[in-house]
């Protein structure tokens, strides 16, 4: 019973992660300049990869319930990967944005008449 629930949750999570990956990619293509694109790219890092890893963790939990003790190490590694991602993603985004602004790139702006 609980395994079925976990399995469904895992697939829902993986599909959600894929959704955010695709939306992030669309954002990279649609948005006008490097700074705004970094917002979209950050989305694939935080939410897309995060949900994918969550889904995979559910799968390993299902495996552990079936008695596959070797899945523990997979679960630990997934947690490490996520922690690494959460730690490095903002730093690399910051470094990229900083490099862009230091090299003299002007952020794109629109005439914001809709909201001030």
């Amino acid at each position, binding site marked *: 019973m609980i395994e079925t629930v976990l399995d469904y949750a895992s697939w829902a999570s993986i599909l959600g992660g894929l959704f955010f990956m695709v939306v992030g990619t669309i954002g990279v293509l649609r948005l006008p300049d490097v700074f705004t694109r970094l917002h979209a790219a950050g989305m694939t890092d*935080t*939410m897309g990869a995060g949900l994918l890893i969550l889904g995979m963790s559910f799968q390993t939990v299902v495996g552990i319930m079936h008695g596959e003790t070797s899945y523990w190490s997979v679960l630990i590694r997934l947690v490490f990967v996520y922690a690494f991602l959460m730690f490095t993603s*903002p730093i690399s985004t910051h470094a990229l944005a900083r490099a862009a602004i230091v090299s003299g790139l002007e*952020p794109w702006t629109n005439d914001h008449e809709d909201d001030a």
Partner: protein
Amino acid sequence: MLRAVGLGAILLTFWLLLSGHYTPLLIGFGVGSTALVVFLSMRMDVIDHEGVPIHISTRLLLYIPWIMKEIVVANIAVAKVILDPRLPISPRLVTFHGSPKTDLGRVVYANSITLTPGTITIGVSGQEYLIHALSAADLDSNEQDEMDARCTQVAEG
């Protein structure tokens, strides 16, 4: 010195969690590797209150659930903006004043801002943060104040 021992303990735990093979030979290699890495880190001078922030670790762990919630909320907001056919963005550069005073607190705050999509920290200079925001809605001052307060609390107790 205490921090070096702390770093060694953390690294050895990291090794044992990754390894999964608990033979005397491999545990011995783990101990040796940890010693080598701690030695190199001391030579590189990366062991200090910034490099090994064990004093804030519990508060940082307590901070994680809140920042996760913020990440989810911000992601959904940005996804809506991207999928909107009109693409309602109004990017702008703004300067914030943040209250964390220590370097560690400034890093936690800057990274929290970058982690929530919609805002990116471009530069940190003293207590001034140069932020690039995707639209005005991402600059909700209540939320930023709360994040500011929480980050200060994480880093400075």
